[in-house]
């Protein structure tokens, strides 16, 4: 059994990206985010990005660093800190465009892109301000009679949210790009992967394909190499978001990150310490030193 070898580094992933592209980021809030890939973007000069995400610190960091033109999301939250302070200030300063969807509408947009149809119909969004505030969201009339036998129902037509690139983080993967999640929720990572032209998947550990059953049942093997362009081995790569069962959220670090939104000086200090480093390895090294200090 010979499988392709798609192993690459964070830097090689970033070399595939261009200014102005649309990047979907998996995970949910401050949970299992591909943070090592986000950090690599922050070390590059990439800008004018459209970010599609059930947003957490991925969105906040990219906004704070001025890399974002537009955010398409159902929410942006740090979970234990409900409001993402960096995203908030970007929105309140008018620094970014937003497309603020119902969480389920965002799923349908990814599914439409994955299935290569222009839209998917739903009741979600009807009667809310979404269609009025976001004119790119249109409605569609069902060609079938309504439940009362009269004309077809009018529904929201969620447009396909086509991604240039998706970034996701798994607990385990093989070198060919098959991924395994070991937490309680895959979130929408499979849909992100299928909605994108190219998907880059980081993982806690690359293992031989035959070892997946050692970590979880076959039900956990939900990402296929069909939809994965490159695999990055990134232990601690979801830090400071949670990645159970490998590790929980680093709440102390997340508080530091949130506090960095309090002033430009605080952000500069955070940036120089945690983002202006040479590599992901240097970040993880700095993290170990920070934890030593704390003891």
């Amino acid at each position, binding site marked *: 059994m010979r499988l392709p070898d798609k192993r690459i580094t964070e830097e090689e992933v970033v070399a595939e990206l261009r200014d102005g592209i649309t990047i979907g980021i998996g995970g*949910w809030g401050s949970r299992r985010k591909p943070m090592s890939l986000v950090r690599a973007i922050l070390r590059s000069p990439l800008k004018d990005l459209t970010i599609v995400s059930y947003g957490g610190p991925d969105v906040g960091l990219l906004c704070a660093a001025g890399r974002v033109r537009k955010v398409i*999301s*159902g*929410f*942006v*939250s740090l979970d234990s800190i*409900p*409001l993402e302070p960096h*995203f*908030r200030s970007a*929105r*309140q300063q*008018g620094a970014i465009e937003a497309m*603020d*969807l*119902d*969480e*389920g*509408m965002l*799923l349908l947009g990814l599914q439409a892109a994955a299935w290569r149809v222009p839209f998917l119909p*739903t*009741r*979600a*969004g*009807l*009667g*809310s*301000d*979404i269609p009025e*505030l976001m004119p790119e969201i249109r409605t569609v009339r069902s060609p079938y009679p*309504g*439940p*009362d036998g*009269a004309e077809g*129902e*009018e529904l929201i037509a969620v447009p396909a949210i086509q991604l240039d690139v998706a970034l996701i983080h798994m607990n385990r993967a093989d070198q060919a790009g098959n991924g395994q999640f*070991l*937490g*309680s*929720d*895959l*979130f*929408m990572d499979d*849909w992100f992967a299928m909605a994108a032209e190219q998907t880059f998947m980081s993982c806690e550990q690359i293992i031989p394909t035959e070892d997946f059953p050692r*970590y*979880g049942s076959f039900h956990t093997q939900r990402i296929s190499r069909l939809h994965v362009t490159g695999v990055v081995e990134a232990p601690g790569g979801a830090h400071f978001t949670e990645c*159970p*069962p*490998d590790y929980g959220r680093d709440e102390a670090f997340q508080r530091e990150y949130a506090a960095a939104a309090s002033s430009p000086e605080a952000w500069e200090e955070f940036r120089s310490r945690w983002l202006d480093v040479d590599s992901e390895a240097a970040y993880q090294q700095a993290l170990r030193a920070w934890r030593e200090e704390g003891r």
Partner: protein
Amino acid sequence: MSSVRHEPTDRAAGEGALDADVTADRVRRADVCVVAIAECFRGDGERLCNPIGTIPMIGGRLARATFEPDLVMTDGFAMFTASVLPPGTDPYRSREGRLEIDSVVEAWNPYPQMFSVLWNGRRHVVMGASQIDCYGNQNLACIGDWRRPKVQLLGFRGAPGNTINHTTSYWIPNHSPKVFVQKVDVVCGVGYDRARTLGPVASRFHEIRRVVTNLAVLDFETPDNRMRLRSVHPGVTVADVVEATGFELVVPDEVPETRLPTAEELRLIREEIDPDNLRHTEVPG
């Protein structure tokens, strides 16, 4: 004991003699709010009970433990669970590289599946609201013009899809004119006037059942579905509620008091569902 017993008690609320303990002076406001939330689920039968927030979670669990034993409960993460830990306890932990869960799982319901459940309709959610108007239009997205918000809040989250697909109630721990407004800045959750404009077909699954606050219980059981004062909590006057509401409430001639917990309900709340008393941190007094 950390788990909740779910034997059906088959006892009508309020029935039976009250303990000496269950008098208005011993029952605290948060206990009344918990019972008022539980009452939102009365009659729901086998439906997903999905209250979001501390007092809503306690209230939902109380309904399940007493008069609505068939309710399906979530752990707030990815599981439907037959037993639950007290609010604020994380049921998941890692052991030898595996995820374990300290509750009895009925079904796995990760986020993608949750949207199927809610579009399917067998769900009653209790959400919060940063603003709500007299028809139950709710805002939790932002304050000010959405295009450039004065204050960015949560975003739309699931509010549009929830309200148009299944029953919704609201929990508002700070009843004030800042929350109960003439006009919400952004409509996330759909209210009755909007539902009516959509027509009977589009709005056939829409129901805003109750609004429970730290002062009162409100509903929309009026001819034009304007918000009505259903009951005031013990110690609160009708005038208090009217003053704390930024629009004209429908106030019936007789406004009853929100019912007190029964002795058994109080025992369940204190000993089994919320032994750490988190409810009093959300509603003091």
